[in-house]
């Protein structure tokens, strides 16, 4: 980067070299200044994990500010954790859906977020401003096993995405006890469409003084609606603004700085979404989103 900001690095660990490379490629599209180091396969052309290669990827991605590591399956997690323990730097292994988590983390890192924020972006567990935690915002608390210490006994049955009480939101991963099942994005939308934004539909954040909100309806005239790339552009466009911006579509509501949450809305091309912003830069935030949509997100 040409200005003096250090960005958090990312590492993608997969059993498959193609998968790791592909995820890194996809996430990198949104984050030109972020080092995303893939480490896939067993190092001998086969499926598996390679501790030394993961260790090397971690040190390559670390510019001194920290690294977030994403993984695909159980043993990749173990190798990632060992590499994190072996590293001198600040390395965070996150249990997140691999593709969406990597994209969200990359965008957060590109925005200059710190290690906690990038890790939270990956898992969809956004550190929202006080009182602004939207349980139904799609980026709410994804079913993250924290330290993965589920002994398997808490929920003995395989979590069914979109069904049952697994806290699946905005692509949170359904957990099979002990090993992550593929996070099924859209498994979250079942909860979104059922859950609605009861807590937030009242407007301002609970307990906070009422603020004047800037509202605008925006039509998504681009072909794909709020998919990954447009969502990333939206989130990035708000960098540096002092505003809390939410996007509503149907019964769902998302924090506009959360790529995962925006994607979780499932707003297709042609949809009309409502943008609601509060804070000193609310008007500017709404203007930026309106302009992005008017340009069809540069598609």
């Amino acid at each position: 980067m040409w200005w003096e900001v250090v960005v958090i690095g990312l590492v993608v660990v997969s059993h498959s070299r193609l998968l790791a490379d592909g995820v890194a490629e996809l996430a990198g599209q949104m984050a030109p200044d972020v080092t995303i180091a893939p480490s896939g396969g067993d190092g001998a052309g086969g499926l598996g994990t390679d501790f030394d290669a993961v260790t090397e990827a971690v040190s390559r991605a670390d510019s001194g500010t920290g690294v977030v590591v994403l993984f695909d399956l159980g043993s990749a997690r173990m190798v990632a954790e060992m590499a994190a323990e072996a590293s001198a730097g600040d390395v965070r292994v996150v249990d997140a859906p691999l593709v969406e988590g990597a994209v969200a983390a990359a965008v957060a890192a590109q925005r200059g977020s710190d290690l906690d924020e990038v890790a939270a972006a990956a898992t969809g567990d956004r550190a929202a401003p006080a009182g602004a935690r939207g349980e139904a915002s799609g980026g709410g608390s994804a079913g993250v096993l924290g330290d993965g210490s589920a002994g398997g006994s808490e929920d003995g049955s395989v979590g069914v995405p979109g069904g049952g009480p697994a806290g699946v939101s905005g692509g949170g991963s359904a957990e099979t006890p002990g090993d992550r099942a593929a996070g099924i994005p859209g498994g979250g939308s079942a909860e979104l469409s059922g859950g609605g934004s009861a807590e937030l539909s009242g407007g301002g954040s609970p307990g906070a003084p009422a603020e004047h909100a800037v509202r605008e309806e925006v039509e998504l005239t681009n072909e794909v609606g709020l998919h990954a790339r447009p969502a990333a552009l939206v989130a990035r466009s708000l960098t540096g603004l002092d505003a809390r911006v939410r996007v509503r579509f149907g019964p769902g509501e998302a924090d506009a700085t959360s790529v995962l949450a925006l994607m979780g809305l499932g707003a297709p091309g042609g949809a009309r979404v409502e943008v609601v912003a509060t804070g000193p830069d609310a008007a500017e935030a709404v203007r930026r989103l309106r302009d992005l949509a008017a340009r069809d997100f540069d598609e």
Partner: protein
Amino acid sequence: MGCTAERVAEALRAVARVVAEHRDELVRLDREIGDGDHGENLNRGFAAVVSKLDAEVPATPGAVLKLAATTLISTVGGAAGPLYGTGFLRAAAAVGDAGELDAAAVAGALRAALEGVVARGKAVVGDKTMVDALTPAVGAASAAVAGGDVAGVLDAAAEAAERGAESTVPLVARKGRASYLGERAVGHLDPGARSTSLLLRALAGSAR
């Protein structure tokens, strides 16, 4: 006599031979409920340990165990690498710089190994993993320390591990790749539990 670095190295060579002999069996078990790489991975890992020992045997039992740990972590591409690697690493830390290991030290090393495996893999007894073999082995080893020697401790551990491995057959897996199979894993022996029992049996045979 106590267990010197040379004896520990000899025991690891015995393990490598047993793993090579049972490679196909472990592959078959892992194909049934996993990704099929367990036998191959473990065989590659222990073969690499042997070639390092052939080059040079470190000075203490702890150093031999640590060499095994780092080699397994670097050469075994599946779950077995981090799990066995962490187990050996903890065992190495537990025995410290001692020049010889007695029965109590061996039992303590096994206990530390189990703690490491549990910390790494987060499995508990009943999850259909190597923990189902290693946990009873540690209990039996501790009980055998009083009035026993190293061979007696390892015999007791191996026997308990074999029973523990058998106990995984009727279980539904809750960790590892087999956890995706649900009920379909029932009726199959867990490959990790099997390899743990083979490993302990090899160590016991070498200690006689």
